[in-house]
């Protein structure tokens, strides 16, 4: 090949390489989430109550324990699972039973869920049972909300702030 054509060939190669690099560095665009929907993210860490109530020791029982292990009561460490529900306009959309974490099931329960909904107005109800009861719930919160397209509504649970926190 004549020298000039070889230089042109190199130029062509560099141009193509730069073009491809520049292109795939941002394109094609990835539609990660539908434009007309909104997302509800439920993310919280909360420990349910201990599974077994503490048993109080009588005075003679305490005396019978080895001196180093004497204590007024004995508590199981295992926690109860949480029950969580989310209802939309009165319709149950999500129901989860969340077991405690840890090998001895004594850690907090962790919930991380994402829901995609069409944007719009909703009445949302959140419920949580953390006491191990079979019926009913310990916490409940209802609210109305207008979800914008692509909005991310975060739902947290913080008992010291009164229960469900919407962000």
């Amino acid at each position: 090949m004549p020298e000039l054509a070889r230089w042109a060939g190199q130029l062509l190669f560099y141009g193509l390489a730069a073009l491809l690099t520049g292109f795939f560095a941002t394109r094609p665009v990835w539609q990660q989430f539908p434009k007309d929907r909104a997302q509800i993210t439920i993310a919280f860490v909360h420990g349910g109550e201990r599974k077994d109530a503490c048993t109080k020791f009588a005075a003679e029982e305490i005396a019978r324990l080895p001196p180093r292990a004497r204590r007024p009561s004995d508590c199981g460490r295992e926690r109860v699972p949480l029950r969580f529900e989310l209802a939309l306009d009165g319709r149950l959309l999500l129901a989860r039973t969340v077991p405690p974490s840890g090998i001895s099931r004594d850690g907090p329960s962790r919930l991380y869920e994402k829901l995609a909904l069409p944007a719009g107005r909703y009445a949302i109800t959140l419920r949580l049972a953390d006491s191990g009861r079979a019926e009913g719930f310990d916490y409940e919160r209802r609210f109305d909300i207008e979800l914008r397209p692509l909005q991310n509504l975060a739902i947290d649970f913080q008992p010291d702030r009164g229960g469900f926190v919407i962000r």
Partner: protein
Amino acid sequence: MAAPSGFGARAVKFLRARVRLLFDRAESLLGLAFPPAWNPLLNLGALGFFFFWIVTASGIYVYIFFDTGVTQAYDSVEYMTREQWYLAGVMRSFHRYGSDALVIVAALHLLREFGQDRYRGVRWFSWLTGIVVLVLVFVAGITGYWLVWDKLAQYVAVVTSEWLDALGIFGEPIARNFVAPGALDDRFFTLMLFVHIAVPLVALIVLWVHLQRIAKPRINPPRGLACGAFVSLLALSLAHPATSRPPADLASVPGEVGLDWFYLAAYPLLEILPAPLTWATALFLFALALSIPWLPPMRLARPPRVDLDNCNGCARCFADCPYDAITMVPRSDGAPFSAEARVDPGSCVRCGICAGACPTATPFRRASALSPGIDLPDLPIAALRDRVEAEGRRLSGRGRIMVFGCAEGVPLEGLASARVGVVRLNCAGQLPPAFVDYVLSRDLAEGVLVTGCAANACHARFGILWTEARFARTRDPQLRRRVPAERLRTLWAGRLGRRALEAEIASFARALEALPPPAPVRRAPGLPATREVERA
């Protein structure tokens, strides 16, 4: 482990051949425009270093302006791109596109070494360390996108942390940091920045280890290629500067993101597919990458043997070995030389270049059995001489040519004819130059043609380089002065070069026929021989 004849082994072999052919084609295509020394595909490792330095230098510059805070991070990057576009902005583009180029050339380098079958046997070492570097490069790239704290960063943060959380080994789910505004604090950025700086440093250390078994590694691309790469990076940075997406907003989902597909191509899959599947796939691929040098293990020939009776400690083999597999150690046999060669079989690829370098590897020797100081037991110099003589006896007529060809270069099947003798070598560098003199002075052929891999693409790295230098008499062992230049040719044509080789043979034969016929040989083989050991 799969049996060598198993399905897996056959699949790997098939894949390897495909990849090799693809690279052969691409290399020769680029060879139309690039001189061999500048061919980008023949400089992938060096280009990797080049881009690594570019990313490092530009990274240091943008670090000066970067602010680690949830809101400040984005603004500081915007400042670079908008206010100081002419320097910080260009540096940012260099940083981004340089990283893209780095991962591209590293991936191509990996594929090429795989296709060339340079990842098994003793090369497992370079392969494994290479895989580690590649993983580190990805970690660095991903944390880099995280730092900008735009919508892409948010996307990367959420998908990465959800993926890590799926492992269930982190007490607090990391993804909770990214569910709502205010959940994230500045310490997180400091941590990310630390990872983003520390990981490349570790990668650099591993890269140093990567080259431990490579003699004189080429870590700098030739100037012409470096210029081209630099200028095209600059042009791209000016024409299409790296910019941020809109700032991250945890109160909304990113929706649409412009992904850097070089680093983040897996992210849509991580998002869509169930975590157990993606984790299993990732771990499987990683384990496969780490174990492929043994799937199946390479059957290695025996390593070269040093014959102390013929080793004078000249260290030529040591100087020529492309894999640092030879060390010069104190004499163990009491002979009055300062050193002797010792081979480390764990680093040696059995190329035979050491035998080609040894001054005692001369076919003229007759007094004793031909045993050079260092020799491959499975393809010894003595066998090469037998082969040369047998081929020489077979040839007849004018324009007789002895072709020496390497195992990785131009295919030699069916090339032999009444006028063409063929002698196979492991590597062109295995040929002691005295063989050329031997063939011509004994009139075993009228000309010698040495052929092998494509120029600058020697499978054993230095075979072509040393052969040319020995023939040019700039490197020991040198070709004897009496060898006429017009009777020796080299052709570096590679596996696709069969046609070129045939054309070269035809033109060489014509040229030889035009020369005066060689004088009759006075010494018949087998007569009392003169010991012609070249001076050390």
